[in-house]
């Protein structure tokens, strides 16, 4: 009897390692805040991922039942603290929808400028922290250098660097100071070449591409089913952006501007600017596409800001002042979603005729975007989990409220 066996016979393919439960977070750097993931692993493969949230719950909705809308505004800064301008806008527009208030031409252009600057700042952090989570440190420092310039512009216009409370119910707290628009343009001019550097560092980086491509693939139906919005939804090839498809009170803000919704349609991105090619093995809906949508939206936001600066300079009159702190609210309910950098941010206000809302609801974009994690992380390698989380770009302040 021969003992000679083929080498492959001695490999046991059905060997499973002991199941292990791994706590990722709440202090893990790649969970972007205080998210805790409980991972059930079989060797290197994640069989189940359960997110636990609420570590940053500050009951913002309950607080809003004790304050007038303008008093609540600073609390919206603390929701998505990386894009506080866009949070202010969501709440201000929601209350304006209830009041039936329309802001002046000049105000709307100014709001667009700060919101799109906020979007650039947010996407820079999102893109570079994807790199950071995968072990590439340089882009993180480079984007923070650029973000710092935006933060300086914000500091100049409203006095705060993170929690702006600038866009407020009825208008904005103050007009742009003299020379501010010029400094905005100077920032944009010097920023455009930096985007190419970022593309070189990340978008076409072989390691980054390998880690992001074909990881966490989200088909469009699944993305819609889980209520994913923003770049997460568009990365799956769904042509949907509230700046174009939203309610009139919000789309009017962008009326007259020319721009495209950034989403891969038939494998092509609708952009007029030169951009790196899509890697040949990238699948629409994977982490790389979510990252790439953000990078292209940065370029597109620059275009929008330039148009808004032109619009602002041509518009006559004054910017609108905020409404009175304790203005009576008409009886009624208004719900409005705006396109925040991380997705569709919704606010709802139920008013009973007093200046204090009866109930306020905050629909967080990251909340829905995160709820897809158990689905995306099932069956992936442990090392892919940070890549998937980074591509979803969430902030726990907004999820936990």
């Amino acid at each position, binding site marked *: 009897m021969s003992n000679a066996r083929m080498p492959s016979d001695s490999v046991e393919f059905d060997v499973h390692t002991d199941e292990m439960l791994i706590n990722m977070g709440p202090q893990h750097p790649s969970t972007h805040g205080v998210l805790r993931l409980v991972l059930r692993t079989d060797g290197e493969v994640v069989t189940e991922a359960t997110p636990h949230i*609420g570590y940053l*719950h500050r009951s913002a909705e309950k607080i809003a039942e004790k304050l007038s809308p303008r008093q609540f505004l600073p609390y919206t800064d603390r929701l998505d603290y990386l894009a506080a301008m866009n949070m202010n806008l969501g709440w201000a527009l929601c209350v304006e929808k209830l009041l039936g208030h329309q802001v002046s031409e000049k105000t709307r252009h100014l709001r667009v400028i700060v919101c799109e600057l906020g979007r650039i700042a947010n996407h820079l952090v999102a893109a570079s922290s994807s790199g950071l989570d995968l072990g590439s440190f340089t882009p993180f420092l480079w984007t923070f250098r650029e973000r710092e310039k935006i933060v300086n512009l914000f500091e100049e216009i409203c006095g705060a660097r993170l929690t702006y409370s600038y866009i407020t119910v009825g208008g904005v707290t103050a007009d742009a100071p003299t020379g501010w628009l010029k400094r905005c343009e100077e920032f944009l001019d010097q920023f455009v070449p930096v985007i190419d550097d970022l593309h070189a560092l990340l978008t076409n980086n072989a390691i980054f591409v390998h880690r992001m491509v074909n990881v966490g693939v989200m088909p469009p139906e699944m993305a819609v*089913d889980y209520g994913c919005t923003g770049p997460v939804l568009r990365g799956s090839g769904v042509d949907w952006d509230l700046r174009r498809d939203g309610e009139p009170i919000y789309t009017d803000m962008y009326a007259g501007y020319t721009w495209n919704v950034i989403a891969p349609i038939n494998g092509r991105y609708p952009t007029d600017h030169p951009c790196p090619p899509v890697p040949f093995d990238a699948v629409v809906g994977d982490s790389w596409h979510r990252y790439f949508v953000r990078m292209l939206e940065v370029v597109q936001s620059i275009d929008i800001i330039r148009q808004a600066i032109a619009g602002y300079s041509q518009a006559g009159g004054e910017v609108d002042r905020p409404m009175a702190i304790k203005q009576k609210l008409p009886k009624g*309910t208004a*719900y409005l*979603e705006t396109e925040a950098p991380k997705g569709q941010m919704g606010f709802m206000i139920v008013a009973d005729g007093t200046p204090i809302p009866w109930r306020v*609801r905050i629909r967080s974009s990251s909340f829905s975007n995160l*709820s897809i994690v158990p689905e995306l992380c099932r069956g992936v390698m442990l090392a892919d989990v940070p890549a998937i989380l980074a591509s979803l770009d969430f902030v726990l302040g907004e999820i936990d409220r």
Partner: protein
Amino acid sequence: MNAEQIYARLEHPFRPWLVGCDFAAIDPWIEVKPDGLADVARYLREQPDLWFDMLHCITAVDYFEPDEKKAAQVEWQPHIELLYHLSSLRHRHRLVLKTSLPRWLDDQPGRLPEAPSVSRIWSTAEWHEREVFDLSGVKFLDHPDLRRILCPEDWPGHPLRKDFVMPPDYHGVPTR
């Protein structure tokens, strides 16, 4: 389709379930009985001409006035209202679906009111319903995993209810 047309579309199969509507409201809404909620939701999701494929938000509003003086002036009976904000990406229309629940099941304080879960129709509802259960105290029947999501597991009560009283301490940690 606007809300009026959607209502007309729902009237034939679901007439007994529809209890109210307001097309002139800021956000037009249609109210259904809680028992018919899941069927209406599935119909809205699956009919090709309605195709409400995205559920944005589930909200519970507690209508209850703890202050007796003020309670005498309000025009509503105490209840909990659930709002479902829906939209269709394909047809670009929106709708608010409402349903009204008692504050307590069988008027026995402590027994949570029940509503059918829509988490099998829209997956996003799974987390939203957990949040409504956690903060507003509504039990969703047929939910796959109904536990608290934002508050600790052993938190007493449901904070977004108007009669919620903050406990003086939590595991020895003063709350004030």
